[in-house]
């Protein structure tokens, strides 16, 4: 259960693309229906590259690729293909894939200081298709909550912004504008150090990214940019002993596109 820094990729000018430059914004648009799709690279012998430049040296330890169709690809830093990331907790340790079949993946890597991250997209799962990627996150952690909350205190939902029309015969028509994640995490017995770390995150009052159960395979694809509105509650004791730890709720709401 991780809260990450805001996506390092947030402007189109950061993305250096070998084609489809008009689709650069879709790389950091959470709505995965709108993908970056290469143009003229529907051949597994051609490589389409996405390079994301940072305007200063950044620490990268988390990468996420959602709704892609890549079979063979590699991602690396500072423009050198040998600079692959060291992946932990996944099915491979190097960020180089030859026969991938997953369409959404979340990678934890050893933290790297770098000024760019590149993805060379070589082959597609269905052969000879344009290379597609729905959402790219490049980030680092704010805080890793080593244990999840109790299931009853983990309330996650997709909230639609929808218009419900009641027609003249009483029938209903729904028109959807967008679906946004909202999550409430209830914790008890948190150590003082964890409480203080959470307070540091809360006090930033800035955009962040929430990923509860990121994996490289069979991922539930839940990752979203969010804000933490409301109170900081974790000064409440969990029990009648000051040493028992602290309780409170974290509410995270997805940001606009």
């Amino acid at each position, binding site marked *: 259960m991780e809260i990450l820094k805001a996506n390092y990729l947030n402007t189109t000018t950061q993305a250096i693309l070998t084609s489809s430059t008009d689709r650069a914004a879709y790389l950091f648009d959470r709505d*995965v*229906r*709108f*993908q970056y*799709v290469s143009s003229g690279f529907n051949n597994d012998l051609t490589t389409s590259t996405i390079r994301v430049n940072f305007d200063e040296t950044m620490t990268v330890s988390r990468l996420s690729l959602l*709704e*892609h*169709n890549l079979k063979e690809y590699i991602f690396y830093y500072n423009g050198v293909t040998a600079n692959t990331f060291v992946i932990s907790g996944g099915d491979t340790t190097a960020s180089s894939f030859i026969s991938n079949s997953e*369409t959404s993946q979340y990678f934890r890597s050893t933290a790297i200081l770098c000024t760019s991250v590149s993805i060379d997209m070589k082959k*597609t*799962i*269905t052969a000879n*298709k*344009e290379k*597609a990627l*729905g959402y790219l996150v490049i980030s680092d952690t704010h805080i890793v909550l080593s244990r999840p909350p109790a299931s009853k205190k983990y309330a996650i939902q997709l909230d639609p912004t929808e*218009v419900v*029309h*009641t*027609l*003249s*015969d009483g*029938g*209903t*028509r*729904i*028109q*959807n*504008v967008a679906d946004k994640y909202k999550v409430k995490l209830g914790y008890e017995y948190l150590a003082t150090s964890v409480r203080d770390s959470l307070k540091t995150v809360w006090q930033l009052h800035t955009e962040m990214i929430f990923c509860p159960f990121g994996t490289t395979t069979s991922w539930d694809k839940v990752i979203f940019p969010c804000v933490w509105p409301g109170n900081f509650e974790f000064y409440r004791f969990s029990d009648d002993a000051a040493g028992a730890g602290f309780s409170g709720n974290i509410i995270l709401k997805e940001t*606009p*596109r």
Partner: protein
Amino acid sequence: MAETILSQIKAPNSYVFRRVLLKRKSAMTGLHESVWQDISSDVKTWGSIRREIDNVRYSKIKFGDVLMKFENSSGRYNPHEDDASFWFGYASQQRSLIKIEAGFTHSTLASDNIWTNTEYPSTPSVFYGIISGDLYNSDDNHVQFSIRPLLQVFRDYPAKNLTGFTSTGLTATQFFQMIRDQTDGSSNFIFRPFFGDTTTNWNIGSTSNIYANLNTNNSVDVFDKTVWDIMEKLAESEDKIIYVDNLGTFNFTTRDVTSTVAFHFLGNGFVDTEYGHTIKKVSKFGKRQTDFYSRVEVKWIDSNTFTAVRVKETAFAVTGSNDAWNLGHRTFKFENFWIPTITVADTILDNIYNNVTVLKNNIEFTSSFVPHIDILDRVRMSYDSSALNPTSRWDLFDWSADDTSTAQDLYWDRFRGDAIRLIGADFKILSIDLSLDKFETKIVAIEI
């Protein structure tokens, strides 16, 4: 099944979109930037877009402002002098160009894991305007923009500063062409940049009457007027209308309704697989008595003489079939001293008379989101506030068995009323109010 705008409109569950796009003015050239900037993600409330013609009064155009509220905690919508402002480095926020788009998105995922997203309609613009008016910040971190229709640019320019008049005067067509081609004296167009910076976005109808007073910028009909004042007078005297359509095209044209049916609105009591059921509520239906006049006066010369005031009226008689007696002998007065000849005055008189002496059904209704219709469109209406023929009294099942002819059978009707019964009736749209918050279209239309 192939998706179309109609299939999206009638779909029980669909995705809709709305966008507001902006073009700032260069601090150097004063011209709008070439690329539209999408500022949709900062919108807190979208407001409504309203276009109307002849709704309140014949030939009067009402300017409907769009009031859109933006989140401004970062100061992005502060004045252009503020370095946090999105306009920093550009000219004033005022008269920035705004385009609003709305429609449906249909998304499909192919087996190669590539999404295809198609927007309906393919050209989804519903409004073009400019930022115009006071912009106040507040401590709840929002700023409300007043977005006015493009016609505002004609209000904001004095006619006295126009060049291109000829000593013999101008026709209305020539005047509008002169406006289209007006420059600041250094080959920079004054009005054209707001209309796509092209002549093709000016639909100027042809006229032949020459207005002698449009001969110099010091003319009594020009020197204290705005460009809009003159346009409005010309439209009245030519019996035409001025409006900017949803594609941002300037129109000086007749008020003729389109010949083809742009959309068929259906409500209770009807089933249609092409258009579906879109009427939510009919709030008003009936003959607008206050729009009935049995007498029309057109005053076209500034004097009180028989020649100056042209009159056409219904013959008055105290009989049960006389409209002037039944409804009141009311007079519609119309005054325009730009009308060039008595013949033109009489033509306008006839047109107005034909419009106001026939009681027509008006309808005001609300529908679910229908983004692609415009004023003057012909729309078809089918709506029945009850399910059975309202002229019948008794139930067919009980009373028809002994008779092969059902013409004389009597039907029980549903008790909830027969107030409205429209079966494929054609109407002309006079007013459209599109709520971008509710994705709802309010329409006022008159029967054709």
